[in-house]
């Protein structure tokens, strides 16, 4: 397994760990978000799930910022030889969009919570600053923004994962192995 941060043909261990930690956390937060918003009325379970969702979001934001900084200072490996130029451009575009989304999706949720007048208390212990005053109109706008940024992210993730599967089973060019070392 390659573990040097700048390995030209693969991602380093740090980049791989950041990728999968964020991927799993986002899957959990996304599923939780869909489930909790479907609970009718107000119940203790619903309040708990909302708190967990927000804590996950704050955690994702922090790790995502680290990840963007890591990526900015560590080159990604080049695409597999023979990849058509449009695919290389599409991959780079999707990656940039995902880097953007993993940062702004949590921000949109945090602002939504602020506008709803509910401060985020991380892990139930640390009260985080409300970045907006309570504002019902803004709350509705941010709810919409948070939801649709999530659907956009889900759509890009589907394309991203489909491309990885295609590289693995159609092109058999080792692209997926760069992010999943046990495939190598």
């Amino acid at each position: 397994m390659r573990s040097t941060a700048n390995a030209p043909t693969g991602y380093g261990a740090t980049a791989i760990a950041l990728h999968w930690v964020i991927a799993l956390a986002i899957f959990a937060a996304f599923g939780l978000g869909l489930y909790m918003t479907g609970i009718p009325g107000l119940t203790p379970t619903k309040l708990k799930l909302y708190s967990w969702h927000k804590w996950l979001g704050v955690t994702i934001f922090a790790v995502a910022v680290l990840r963007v900084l890591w990526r900015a200072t560590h080159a990604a490996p080049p695409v597999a030889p023979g990849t058509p130029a449009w695919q290389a451009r599409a991959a780079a575009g999707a990656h940039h969009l995902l880097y953007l989304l993993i940062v702004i999706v949590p921000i949109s949720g945090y602002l939504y919570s602020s506008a709803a007048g509910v401060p985020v208390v991380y892990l139930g212990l640390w009260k985080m600053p409300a970045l907006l005053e309570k504002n019902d109109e803004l709350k509705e706008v941010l709810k919409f923004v948070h939801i649709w940024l999530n659907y956009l992210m889900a759509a890009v993730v589907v394309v991203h994962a489909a491309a990885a599967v295609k590289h693995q089973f159609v092109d058999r060019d080792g692209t997926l192995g760069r992010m999943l070392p046990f495939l190598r």
Partner: protein
Amino acid sequence: MKRNSRRGSLVIAAVLAASGIAANLAWAQVDAAKSSVTAVARQIGVPMEGKFKKFDAAVSFDPAKLATSSAKVEIDVSSFEIGDAETTKEVKGKDWFDAAKYPKAVFQSTSIKNGTPGKYDVAGKLTIKGKTVDVVVPATYRQEGAVQVFEGALPIKRTVFNIGDGEWKDTSVVADDVQIKFRIVLAKK
């Protein structure tokens, strides 16, 4: 909205007639715009502040005549608003205030004594959701011209009043400790 303190005014009229001193004991009206009664609860560490938009207070208070001073506050619990519409609806419902069955929360003083410097200990009976508990409310008092201002905070345990019944009894979600904060401004007439 302004409401008269009918009951208080009778007491005051009697005192006035007896003493002839009008200084601090006078027919008073709650200045609803400047007064407030709020409750702060915490859900998983998150403070949630709700406001009772309708209440009435009948207060006759003279710092020199604590023995004859008294206070009664009546709160219309269906006027409570907290967070969003869904939360407000839940909190007025059966498990919480059950506002349909118990429309009023009432505090009636039984004695007023000097407390820590600058504060008065207002002992009395607090009734919420049909349950009456003896409490001592620490309150500050100041007079600004013709206006009397009372402020204070009373910590209560919500479960004592069965506020948050059923699955809400779990105090790890909504904490047992609730802070009732008040600011009552009375305009003398």
